[in-house]
């Protein structure tokens, strides 16, 4: 913005400064708009700024990865557990490997290689799905992940609906994800204008929640996609109630305790251990005591912690 000034041109003039400031604001505004347009999701806890355009610009090339080895299969403790490999110096070695890889001379990438952006056999992804839909899945016991698509026609229709019903002086409609729980007023979660996915806190007690994507303005709501029902999370089971089935090649059939004749060749006794015995079995299974409260909140069990020091029983 503006002509380049030489060092002997004296102090900057106000109009030059204003011009530069305006240019900076416009550049910043464009950057924000471009970023907002490219935002692929929102998060109530974190904002993700990556986008397809940015990803297309960063398509991989052989040698750009820090570590070109097979990491996924069989990584001890690293089966998603986040543990390091068993080597005590694994992290250091990987860092060294990364440096070595970065320092190595790289040969030119082959033309048409996977992910080069010029590969005719890697066509671009569709920019949008041209459908109206909303889907949500459980990410973890406390969080849902939702994604959606909305056609231009549906968005225009919803907006027109709001315009007919309300006062445009209320401002631009907001894109919201409406979460409805039985017995409670719906909660609207504001979304960035061009977001197509995001994370939603699950209700504290794991109740069923209905999600609807829509436009909101002045207390009014026009749906865009959904509703999508997320079922309630099952409550922790009661160990005192046991139902028994006989499993055979044709599936499972019910077993009535006491009505099953004893058979020494194929034991069929369907008698449950006592509550204390059952608790002890859970302790043995996990290597952790289960007296008192369970070691994890009901419905939020995290399974064995592979970083714990429990190991095998101390009697070994």
């Amino acid at each position: 913005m503006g002509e380049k000034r030489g060092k002997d041109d004296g102090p900057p003039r106000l109009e030059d400064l204003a011009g530069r400031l305006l240019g900076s604001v416009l550049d910043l505004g464009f950057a924000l708009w471009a970023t907002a347009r490219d935002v692929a999701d929102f998060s109530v806890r974190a904002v993700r700024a990556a986008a397809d355009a940015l990803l297309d610009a960063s398509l991989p090339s052989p040698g750009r990865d820090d570590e070109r080895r097979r990491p996924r299969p069989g990584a001890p403790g690293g089966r998603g557990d986040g543990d390091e490999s068993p080597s005590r110096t694994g992290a250091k070695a990987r860092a060294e490997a990364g440096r070595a890889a970065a320092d190595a001379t790289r040969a030119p990438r082959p033309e048409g290689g996977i992910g080069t952006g010029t590969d005719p056999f890697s066509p671009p992804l569709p920019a949008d799905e041209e459908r109206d839909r909303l889907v949500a899945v459980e990410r973890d016991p406390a969080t849902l992940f939702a994604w959606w698509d909305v056609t231009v026609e549906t968005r225009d229709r919803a907006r027109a609906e709001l315009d007919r019903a309300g006062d445009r002086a209320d401002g631009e409609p907001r894109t919201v994800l409406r979460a409805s729980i039985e017995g409670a007023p719906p909660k609207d979660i504001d979304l960035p204008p061009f977001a197509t996915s995001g994370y939603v806190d699950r209700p504290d007690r794991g109740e069923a929640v209905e999600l609807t994507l829509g436009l909101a303005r002045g207390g009014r709501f026009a749906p865009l996609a959904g509703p999508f029902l997320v079922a309630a999370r099952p409550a922790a089971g009661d160990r005192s109630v046991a139902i028994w089935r006989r499993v055979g090649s044709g599936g499972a059939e019910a077993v009535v305790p006491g009505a099953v004749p004893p058979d020494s060749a194929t034991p069929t006794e369907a008698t449950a251990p006592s509550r204390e015995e059952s608790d002890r079995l859970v302790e043995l299974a996990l290597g952790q005591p289960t007296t008192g409260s369970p070691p994890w909140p009901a419905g939020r069990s995290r399974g064995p912690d592979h970083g714990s020091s429990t190991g095998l029983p101390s009697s070994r």
Partner: protein
Amino acid sequence: MPSNPPLLALLLHAHLPFVRHPEHGDFLEERWLFEAITEVYVPLLQVIEGLRRDRVPHRLALSLSPTLLDMLDDPLLQRRFVRHVDLRLEFAERELTRTAGDERLRRVVELHRELFRRARDCFVDEHGSSLVPAFRRLQEAGSLELLTCGATHGFLPLLAASPGAVEAQVSVAIAEHRRFFAAAPAGFWLPECGFAPGLDEVLARHEVRWSVVESHGILDAVPAPVHGTFAPVVAPSGVAFYGRDAETSRAVWSAAEGYPGNAAYRDFHVDVGFERPSEELRTLLPPTGDRVPVGFKYLRVTGAGRTKEPYDPDLAAERVERDAADFVDGLARRIGAASALMRRPPVVLAPYDAELFGHWWFEGPAWLDRVARRIADGSPGFELGTPSDDLARNPVVQQAMPAASSWGEHGDASVWIAPGNDWIPRHLDGACERMRAVATEMRGATGLARRALAQAARELLLAQASDWPFLISRGTAANYAEARVRAHLGRFARLHDDLRRGTLDEAWLAEVERRDDVFPEIDPEVYTGGGRRPAV
């Protein structure tokens, strides 16, 4: 031993994503397969064949993923494997010359030469360059119970949101298993142990009898299991679920206290591929010149803060013996304690990635051998068996629905839905919806259209692999993983659009078929089943 003893169900899950790049003469990620053949699958076959030869009672469950089966059966990859191992045998000879004056190091080089020599001899001479029939023979002989998993190892709880997606993963997997082994599997390995209520119904439709979930998938079942994880539960659909045993997993998997981290064992990370001058590694490094592991690792773990010492095979063998004894003895105590509390024999389900044994943990196959032999001598009081054996002997099972769970970090879906990879589900879902629509509308298509439909189904399955978001979330080979997802979704999009518009390009289709030639007999209508979108 009583007629119905407690069981240790050792389950090895062998899987690699489909990494076949005929468009390149040498592609780095194909080495994943070659390393696994050398270090895992051949040694595993040799361990089992050794147990059979010595008449040691044994029985293991082995999950072979459909993509792995396809790659093992692929002539191009078979030829490339032989080239891979031949180059390493040549390098080993040069290394033996170089280390002539260092007896300790030379011995380690010889060990590596022997590793590659055995791999080549077993692969080429004993099994005619195809290992799949060997696994089939071992199943027919009773050594193994083979099971399948998702067709491309898709994370099923996430895919369940898209009608038809889970059905496609399961039905294609079972069809592939039948193609290779002439029978449907009784067991089904849930990729990543990913389970959500409702998935059992899909398995039941395909007559799957048992599957495996993470420990808390059983312990949080509804109603709660009375036997902890020492017995399975059966879902209302009739599929039995076994829970991963936490203690046996910790003994092997834990970075802090697991066996593979012992100082005597071979260090995985220090590889000559990062140590030696490039010109010496010329034939082993990729064409790009990147420094990568080449499979020659001469040092042992040694210990934190210490200079790494040369690997000592005798020291490692001693440690294997001790760790096998520790594992069996510890398990015997736990099983004994559980038996006293139960009115049926306990079963301990110990699943591991097969690639742990031999690749990540070099001594793993030897440890498996020693464990099997220790158990077979009868003193521990339990046997090796499979879940099918357990169900046959103990058919009365508590009914319960396992909880949503996985064996990923935090035990849920967070690895596969995280900043960095969470752009993927929306595209997979959209593609699945379009696949169902076009396959339904073009039902009965023939010729070029049918080929395009089949290829579209393949591309979508390949995009669904759980490996890609996992690699992205871990930041390793992330660029490659992302490129794979984009490539497959992009190919699917073009195939779909060309089908809709009637603009199929046969030459382009033929090239895509050549590159992604997995599941040759796939039914293009495989996505049209599966019902309506379920509520989460």
